[in-house]
């Protein structure tokens, strides 16, 4: 009987995790289109259903009804395998995310490392899809995506290490419990959060880091040859990633599901109001992601790589050293972290733009731009 309970739990998890992914993707697509329209002073999709809320559903049905097309020279096995496996990351990352008190699939004692490790699956699927398409645009898009996702995994891991150092545990639920009474890690380590947030945007392949599918250069990047529901899987995964990444950020930096009266309504051992706070915080971060996408122009490949390897990773290493020194040697280390975190945050935000502009100016003085 025990094995039946285990299997039932596993099935329940898979159903809930896939439901979260699909619903989040459909909601996010609609939300982003309306938000983008608001930023661009337009109306956006507002015809299908009240205020256009059914637009995503209609698009999904259209996509499912499309012809299942595969290019003649494409590799048949890998071309199919790529969209099938692309969601493994987004679904299984939810294994260690606590939605609310008492509502978590498993408390893994290496939860934080699991968060990073499992996202590498998406890279693999994108590589497979780009290679199997037998199209140079797809290949270049896939190569860009893989290089970018591998590079930005490092600053992400470095920033997660700081969270683990502050809490003293790699268990995700312990990290949430540490942030009770509004002692959010995002307040103690705002610079670390900033680094995590930048790295997570790059991991999601979103603007300003959306080079893998930059329309003006690569048609649609790794997804060029895909259509119908196979393209739909890549598309859904990308938009579900918005919510999933923001959920991770909220869990690790902003107190997870905790909030006022989070435990007011309890039955079946689950604190139901917590879900509301969790989703509310998550969608604040999703909105920020959308806002960033439509505010900052796309980077070049060399700028992207230089930003990861020459700026984020060295700063992350220095950040780890400083945080470790503060935790070890400063008696009231929480105050020490608070001061260090905000000083480094404002130093980074304030100095980034002037230093970058100065370097660009010097570069131009050395090699004047030659127009064709």
């Amino acid at each position, binding site marked *: 009987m025990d*094995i039946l309970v*285990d299997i039932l739990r596993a099935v329940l998890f898979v159903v809930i995790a896939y439901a979260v992914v699909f619903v989040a993707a459909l909601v996010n697509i609609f939300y982003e289109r309306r938000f983008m329209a608001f930023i661009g002073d337009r109306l956006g999709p507002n015809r299908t259903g009240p205020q256009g809320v059914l637009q995503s559903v209609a698009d999904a049905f259209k996509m499912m009804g499309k012809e299942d097309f595969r290019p003649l020279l494409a*590799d048949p*096995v*890998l071309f199919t*395998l790529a969209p099938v496996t692309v969601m493994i990351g987004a679904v299984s990352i939810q294994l260690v995310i606590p939605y609310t008190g008492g509502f978590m699939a*498993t408390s*893994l*004692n*290496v939860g934080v*490392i*699991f968060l*990073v*490790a*499992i996202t*590498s*699956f998406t*890279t*693999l699927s994108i*590589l*497979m899809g780009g*290679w199997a398409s037998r199209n140079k645009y797809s*290949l270049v898009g*896939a*190569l860009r995506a*893989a290089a970018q996702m*591998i590079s930005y*995994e490092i600053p992400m891991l470095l920033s997660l290490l700081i969270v683990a150092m502050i809490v003293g545990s*790699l268990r995700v639920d312990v990290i949430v419990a540490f942030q009770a009474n509004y002692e959010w890690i995002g307040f103690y380590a705002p610079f670390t959060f900033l680094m995590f947030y930048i790295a997570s945007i790059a991991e999601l392949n979103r603007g300003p880091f959306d080079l893998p599918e930059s329309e003006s250069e690569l048609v649609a990047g790794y997804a060029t040859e895909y259509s119908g529901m196979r393209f739909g899987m890549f598309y859904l995964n990308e938009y579900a990633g918005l919510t999933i990444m923001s959920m991770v950020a909220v869990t690790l930096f902003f107190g997870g599901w905790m909030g006022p009266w989070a435990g007011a309504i309890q039955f079946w051992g689950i604190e139901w109001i917590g879900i509301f706070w969790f989703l509310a915080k998550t969608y604040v971060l999703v909105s920020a992601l959308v806002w960033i996408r439509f505010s900052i122009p796309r980077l070049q490949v060399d700028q992207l790589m230089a930003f990861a390897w020459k700026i984020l990773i060295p700063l992350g290493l220095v950040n780890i050293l400083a945080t470790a020194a503060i935790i070890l040697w400063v008696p009231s280390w929480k105050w020490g972290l608070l001061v260090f975190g905000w000083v480094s945050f404002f130093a980074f935000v304030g100095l980034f733009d002037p230093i970058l502009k100065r370097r660009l100016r010097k570069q131009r003085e050395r090699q004047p731009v030659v127009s064709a």
Partner: protein
Amino acid sequence: MPGGDFHPWFFVIVAAWVLVCGLGVVLFRKIMYSAVSMVFCFLGVAFAYALLNAPLVAIIQILVYVGAISIVIIFAIMLTEVQHGGYDLFFNRQTAIAAVVALVGAAVLAFVALSSDIGQIGDKSLTPGLRQLSRLIFDRYVFPFELVSLVLVAAMIGAIVLATREKERP
């Protein structure tokens, strides 16, 4: 639950998965298929670690082998492959020698595993906690650990030196 007791059938499933994927690595004629089935083989090994009550090793297996090493291998294949022809496995002529070596290796492993006294699967006393493990790595064995990373740096510098073309003189 990782780290709990598990039904023996789970191990059979995982072992079959690893074996099938391993055979796929050797037998596929297309090198890309071999690489992808190697990824799934690594994944199966990670499942085996998770069953054997070592979640840390399982996650590191995914992070390092699935997330980094196999992606680098696939990268290399994608960038070097020729459109027509050179896309088959070219070292398939050593099948006989490889089979003998693999059989001997498997026999030695099986002999060691059967004759030694390494305890039961999933025995909690065998698997050290995260804290003990990190104490060993970063305290007691920190020098050999850092030495290993030095080897990696040397390999990386060598690769970069070999790969860079000489700059044209201005």
